[in-house]
Each structure stands twice: as C-alpha cells, then as structure tokens.
C-alpha cells in the first residue's frame, strides 16, 4: 500500500500519451506526404466522396434544419423578453451561421457519422491483418486508405457546410415568420456578411474536414485485439474528432476575434 503503483500508472499513461501523440503526428505528416506522393487507387476519392458526402446529405440537412429552427426560436423568445425588436434577428443569425455555427455543427454531425465509419472500416482491416498484408505488398496503408478519405472528407465538409447553412437559414426564417411574425424581407437580409466571416467559416470547415479523417484513421490504425478493439477504436474516433472540432473552433474563433476583430 504505497504510492508506487500510482506513480507507475501515471508514468505508463504518460508514455502511452506520448506514444499516441507521436503516432498521430506520423499519420498527420504521412497524409500530407501521401497527397503529394500520389499512389491512391484510381476513383477511390470519388467513391469515398459518395460514401462520406452524398450519404450524409439527409442527415446533415435534417439536424441543421432543426438546429436553425430552435436557435431562431430561442433568440426571438429572449429578445422579446428584453427589447422586443426582432428586425435584427435574421442578419445576425446568418452572420453567426456563416462564421461559426454552420461549420461547427455540420462537423460535429460528420464527426459522429464519418468518424465512426472510417475508424470502424480501418480498424476492422487492422484487426484482420489486412493492413499488414498491404504493407507486405509494398503499399503504404496511409496512402492507400487514409489519403482518399482525407481528400473526400475535406471536400464533403465544405459542401455540406454550405448546405447546412442554407437549410438552417431557411428553416430559421420559416420559424421567425410563423411563430413571431417577422417579415421574411427583413429576415433574409444578406448584407451583414462580410468576406471576413466567409473566410473564418471556410477555414473552420477545411480544418474540421482535415481533422476528422486523420484522427479517425489514426484510431482505426491503432485498433488492437478483435471486434472489441474495433468498438473501442470507433468510440475513441468519435470522441477525439468531436473534441478536435470544439478545440479548433475555439482557436480559430479566438484568432478571429483578437486578430481580425475589426471585421466583425
């Protein structure tokens, strides 16, 4: 009954953490190297775009639509309590959507769907030793598996963010018109959005789209054991990519406020 086991466990965890960090860095660098190096199977990016992008369209549209309705409803409710002037709600809502909520919430949704999918796929290839087989035949697993998913997720996240923002804005306008009698002409006012907002939103979407496949692929490649290991890899991928989304959002938003603050 000494403190020794605790210190040992702490040390083991630290070593594990350092090891995982290095491996994640390896996947990150390898992915970017793989993009330049080429060598991915032909047509794989398009196929992944279909699996990652097209198949998420309904999911993203439904969730972002409801989020848009709820957010407009809540802010109208609160504004009614304070000022009663609802004319600003549409333009401000669009601004918030473009530079923050649309990319972040779309990416949170994709982190669950796409992240889990990538980790499960790569993880089950790992535990059935197909990754080792790839290596044996002289194919780099990162080039072959992660790079196409990476490219597809970056493109899909940007496209789905645009879709999500549109759906959320339209549904928000509908809510405002139906529940609070806000004139649609006043609500759908696009003049507040500046290039700075578009730049912030776009860079967020690209960063999220890059983070999700790298973290999920990393979790998949580290899967051990049998199907249980794949389950753990999937969970870790969803948690890791969701948290990465929140962290990136925080960093880019803080950057936007402190450095580009004048544009907002």
């Amino acid at each position: 009954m000494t403190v020794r086991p605790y210190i040992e466990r702490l040390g083991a965890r630290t070593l594990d953490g350092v090891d995982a960090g290095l491996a994640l860095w390896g996947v990150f660098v390898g992915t970017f190297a793989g993009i330049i190096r080429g060598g991915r199977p032909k047509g794989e990016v398009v196929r992944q775009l279909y699996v990652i992008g097209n198949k998420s369209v309904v999911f993203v549209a439904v969730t972002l639509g409801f989020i848009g309705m709820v957010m407009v409803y809540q802010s109208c409710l609160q504004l009614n309590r304070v000022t009663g002037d609802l004319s600003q709600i549409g333009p401000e809502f669009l601004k918030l959507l473009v530079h923050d909520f649309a990319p972040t919430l779309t990416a949170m949704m994709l982190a669950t769907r796409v992240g889990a999918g990538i980790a499960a796929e790569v993880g089950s290839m790992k535990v059935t030793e197909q990754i080792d087989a790839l290596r044996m035949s002289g194919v780099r697993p990162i080039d072959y598996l992660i790079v196409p998913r990476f490219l597809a997720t970056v493109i899909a996240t940007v496209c789905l963010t645009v879709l999500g923002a549109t759906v959320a804005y339209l549904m928000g306008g509908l809510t405002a018109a139906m529940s609070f009698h806000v004139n649609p002409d006043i609500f759908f006012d696009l003049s507040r959005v500046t290039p700075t907002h578009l730049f912030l939103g776009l860079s967020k979407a690209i960063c999220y789209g890059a983070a999700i496949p790298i973290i999920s692929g990393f979790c998949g490649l580290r899967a051990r054991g049998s199907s249980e290991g794949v389950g753990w890899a999937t969970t870790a991928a969803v948690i890791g990519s969701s948290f990465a989304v929140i962290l990136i959002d925080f960093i880019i938003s803080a950057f936007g406020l402190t450095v580009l603050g004048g544009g907002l």
Partner: protein
Amino acid sequence: MAPVGDTSVAVGGVLSRLPLGSLAMVEKKAGPGGDERRPTPTFAYYRRGVLGERYLSSVGASAVAIAREAGGITILAGKVLRSLFPPSMDWRELVRNLHKMANRSVPIVVLTAFFTGGIMVIQSGIFVKRFNAAGLVGWASGYAVFREIGPILIALMFSGRVGANNTAELGTMTVTEQLDGLRALAIDPIRYLIVPRVVAMMVSLFALVVIGDLIALGGGLLFSKLILGVEYSTFYYSLVDNLTPGDFLHGLIKAAVFGISIALTSCYFGVSVRGGAVGVGRAVNAAVVAAAVSIMLLDFFLTYLLG
C-alpha cells in the same frame, strides 16, 4: 418472470420480426427478401441506374427501415416502462453502469464544456466590442449554454462515448447469443440488461450536464477576462440579474430526455444486431447517427413545449 419473447409473438407476423420479441425466431428464418441487409451499392451502381424504379424503391425501402426502427424503439420503450412500475431491475448492474457511464465520462465532459464556454464568450464578444456592452456577456453566454449548447454538445459527446460503447457491448452479446443464454436461465434480458442501462444513462447525462454547465460558466468567466477583459463581477451580475433558475431547469429537462433517447436507440440497435462482428460495427454507426438525429428532433419539440 416470463421470457420477453412470449408477450409480442402473439401480436402477429410484423411484431415477431422486431428485436427482443423473439430473436431466436428471426435468426432461424429471415423473412422473404426481408431482414438481410443488402451490401452498400457501389458508386457505379448508382451511376448506371436511371432515376426511376431503382430510385423510388430505395426511397420506399428507407422509409420502411425508418418506420421499423421507430416502431422497434417504441416497443422497447414500452417494455422498459412496464418493468419500471413497480421497479424491478438488477440494482448491482445499475450501480456498475452508473460508474462506467458517468464517472468515466467526467474528464471529456469537463474539457468539452470548458472550451464551449470559451466559444460562447467569443461569439458574444463581437457585440461587446461593437456596442461596448460588457454587461451582456454573462447573460448571452449563460443563456446559450444553459438552454441549448450545454445539453446538446454534452449529449452528443455522451452518445459518442457511452451510447456507441453500449451498442457495441449489447451487439456483441447478441451475436454471441448471450441474450438467448440469459433467457434460457429464465433471466429477463430487459430487466437485467436494458432497464439498468436506460436508468443509468438518464441519471448520468443529467448529472453530467449539471457539471458541464457549471464548468462552461467557469470557462466563460475565465475567457471573458482573458480575451475580452470583462471583470469577473460584471460577468457574474450580468448572469445573475438576467437569468432565472428556469433557464437552468430547461436544460436539465432536455438532458434527461436526451439521456433516455440515447439509451433507447443504443440499446435497440445493440439487441437487433444481425450478421456477426461486421453487423456490430454497422449497428454502432447506425446507433450514433440515430441518437444524433433524435437529439436534434427532441430538442426542437422540447423547446416549443417548455417555452
């Protein structure tokens, strides 16, 4: 304690194909053109297909699948509700699940909430800079965190960590026929496995949102000082003067409902797994997606109901 199968078989063919109703029966004879999920069509398949019969039939098939899943989840909810009155479940399993689901999730919830609070402060910081209205920060970020962002983000994290894990666990038990084993020992899988999990997830998410809300406010307090230069007391009074306990309660009710819905979807997809280990992976994915959609839908209805 009768086996679960007995209750729903009598209702007829449709119900007997639902999970839990009679897993053994379903596994024996997958209905004509029914339960075996088709493999994912390739890209070429869709490129070849004309908009027409194939498209329409896929719309119909997904509508039927959604209806089947919604019905299955409803029936599962009914069974869980029935075993709660009077409460009869495996209490030790409940405590074990509470530890596994709540205590182990605290670190990730704390991290998420901390940065969420920071993000909310940054978003409202735009107004502070433009109108020089430091008195708004606490109110705006507190309102958003309590009512929407706190419960939703923590529920999404919870669904990714606990819900997915739960589906994988139950799914593995299902494909290795451990549920049938329990039934053979005259142990009701609903009371032994499902009910403790549903209760544990509801309680866990409720508690985690309480913790998360407080941490998010702490993060907001810290970052509003660091990034915007708003004094702690300004933040505090802005929060206390403008928000009521009702706002806090609003989020907590949502958290409890989200917890139940995550539990029901993850348990449903877990016990209705088919097709071995690959099926478990597919079920985990489906469960996480269904939980996310149900969180958003319920959030919408609850917002209207609670006002």
